[in-house]
């Protein structure tokens, strides 16, 4: 099959970008979206042009490196699917595909489809952990954790940090990302001592880094490849409010 692409090309953070049209041939239905871009890049290289830069690594939907806007939707048309796990059988060759980078103020474009998401690391560094130095741990069975609690923690911990939630949010908010970590750690007994300070510190960091405020539009969870639920945001708000009342 042959597809027409309109791909965002931008040579560096401060240069102007534009959509450039390409056609790619010999695309099979079983190819992933990124393999289709590989085909384009092989050709561009041999023609002496610079290939389209895009982030990717594991190509099995877990590392969170990949992610582009496909026809205006983060990670494309399939629900709960990362870009690397999206296959060309979902695309109509008759329609051009528009491919753009994540667009959010805290995610400056590095090149083409690659953005700098290190702001998400800064949010975690602000408090997204349990302070448990190596060697200080009690026996793993010392504190039982009810299965429903463990399951809630796991569901939130499944976040891969891809940034789709930020890209999809009309406010450019990282609330779902932050809330996923606050929920993961905040429901577990091990996470209680730092629970409220953690929520407050991470939210403050998120604001300072230039992410927008959350107005609960739910666009984030609709594109989340791991289906992080919107309730996590309620938990975050709850913990931040509690922190404020406790003067943290």
């Amino acid at each position: 099959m042959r597809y027409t692409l309109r791909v965002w090309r931008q040579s560096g953070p401060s240069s102007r970008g534009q959509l450039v049209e390409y056609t790619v041939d010999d695309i099979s239905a079983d190819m992933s979206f990124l393999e289709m871009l590989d085909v384009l890049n092989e050709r561009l290289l041999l023609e002496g042009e610079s290939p389209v830069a895009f982030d990717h690594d594991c190509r099995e939907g877990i590392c969170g490196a990949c992610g582009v806007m496909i026809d205006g939707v983060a990670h494309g048309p399939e629900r709960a699917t990362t870009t690397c796990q999206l296959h060309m059988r979902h695309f109509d060759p008759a329609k051009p595909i528009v491919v753009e980078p994540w667009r959010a103020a805290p995610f400056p474009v590095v090149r083409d489809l690659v953005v700098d998401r290190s702001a998400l690391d800064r949010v975690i560094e602000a408090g997204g952990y349990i302070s448990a130095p190596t060697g200080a741990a009690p026996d793993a069975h010392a504190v039982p954790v009810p299965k429903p609690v463990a399951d809630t923690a796991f569901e939130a911990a499944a976040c891969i940090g891809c940034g789709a939630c930020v890209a999809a949010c009309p406010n450019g908010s990282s609330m779902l990302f932050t809330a996923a970590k606050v929920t993961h750690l905040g429901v577990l007994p091990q996470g209680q001592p730092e629970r409220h300070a953690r929520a407050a510190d991470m939210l403050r960091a998120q604001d300072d880094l230039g992410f927008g405020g959350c107005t609960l539009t739910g666009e984030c969870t609709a594109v989340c490849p791991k289906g992080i639920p919107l309730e996590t945001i309620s938990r975050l708000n709850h913990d931040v409010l509690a922190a404020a009342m406790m003067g943290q």
Partner: protein
Amino acid sequence: MLFTEGDPIADTRTPDGPIESRWEQRRFTARLVNPANRRRLTVAVVGTGLAGGSAAATLGELGYNVLSFCYQDSPRRAHSIAAQGGINAAKNYAGDGDSVHRLFHDTIKGGDFRARESNVHRLAEVSTQIIDQCVAQGVPFAREYGGLLDTRSFGGAQVSRTFYARGQTGQQLLLGAYQALARQIHAGSVRSYPRTEMLDLVVSDGRARGVVVRDLVTGEITTHLADAVVLATGGYGNVFHLSTNAKGCNTTAIWRAHRRGALFANPCYTQIHPTCIPVSGTHQSKLTLMSESLRNDGRVWVPVQAGDERVPGDIPEDERDYYLERLYPSFGNLVPRDIASRAAKAVCDSGRGVGPGGLGVYLDFADAIGRLGRDVVAARYGNLFDMYQRITDENPYEVPMRIYPAVHYTMGGLWVDYDLRSTIPGLFVIGEANFSDHGANRLGASALMQGLADGYFVLPAVIGDYLADGPFGPVDADEVAEAEDDVRAGIAALLAVDGDRTAESFHRELGRVMWDLCGMERSEEGLRKALELIPALREEFWRRIKVTGAGSEFNQALEKAGRVADFFELAELMCLDALHREESCGGHFRVESQTSDGDARRDDDRFSYVAAWEFAGVGSPPVLHHEELVFDSVRPSVRSYK
């Protein structure tokens, strides 16, 4: 002459005495560094997977000045994140007779008696602390309704000692380590350098003193000096082009260290995982694993008749060959990975493979669904079935999965002693990047265990013994300049060729040679052929490689070309190692060394040693050093799964 023989390795720094007390003894004899002095000592840790992430975090907690590097855009993305099944630990929470000694024994046996006993025993001892540590960090392991941790069984073990977090255990353990690392970055004890690739090791006065790195965003080449360097850069499975590794996984860091003098041990020991989704076409970029746990309920079969093109549902029961159950009646579908993989290859080679190209076998859940019901099967494997359907567009509840073996893990790596020191003083190697704990075959759920054991517990306990002699003073500026110039020259050379083939096309071709001639089955004839093909291909690479753009910018084509160049050199050493080891053991199967039933035949009299290779120049015969393996606690026997 393909290689020369050097002196045997004299000292592995293994303590004497009973095996149960060696680690305790070593921890006591290792010198300590005064907390006030630690902040004056810099440790560069390359790689942020389970081993590197946990090591950097723990060294930061101890007060060392830590530099942490990764090529990914965030330390959280290292490929440990993709491990599915679980992590072994001798907790005996199931009360089913597990113990440190049993985990030690299973691991030595699973490795086909080609691992160092002392290291493996220490691994088993430390395993229990890992689970405690991870739970304290908030890793959401699977739990029973009573609130206690759940465990399951894995291949090669008769006890239930595998802790897991659904099919995402690696992700959860890595996020635990990443969060511990983030805490240290916040505290200022660790400086993080993402999108930074190590391209050379600085060796000064015989000591590893830093790394030369390339900033992948700006292309700038800089040197970071340190008192010790820790490589935690993972395995080299991508030498085969197609593997379950992430696209970026590479051998560059350990290969450049090897070129600087670190010995490379057992490079031919590679693990081929039996249950992966088959290749669908020539543009395939990677292979996806389907967890080993599926073999608990799925039955593996192919048609009895070669060339049978009927859809699986039309093939009657008596025209199906459940070959694992037929060949290995006592273990059936649960034979270890190396055996299941080779059996799949054998039936496909006989023309009975299924799916496009005939490179696949069925993994059929019809019986399990009939016996347990669809809901139970969905509860156990639902996420894997979804992933399979997403990739293949086939519904495994209705038609059998098609699976085929794929390269998954490399047991070989840089040689290290008991203290995880390479042969370059001050260069430590941990996790999959070293060779030490899995012998010739790794058991399922043991990679996560080793990575975290090395990073959280072993390295931090022994590195002080080396650093106690530091700080090591200034490094000669000329040596730094020379290392940087080497790196810049290498990049310039790649850019200067301006040929007509991409790095990807060379990688694909190299991978095909390696898969065909140094893959699941190896023969003297095939390996000799590979040793002719690879240097010729390498030479062609340096004549025809095409890289666009410049070195001073974000340039993924350049990154890729540099990694492929190193894979060529490694590939040659792998084939040579495989050729010299005229026995079959674990993941290394030589057709000349098999029993009349087609099983692997070890040759303990000749090959009970670690082959540690010394670099002697590209295209020059390397030097082989032996480390004899001594078995005091487990007697080597023939692995049988009939």
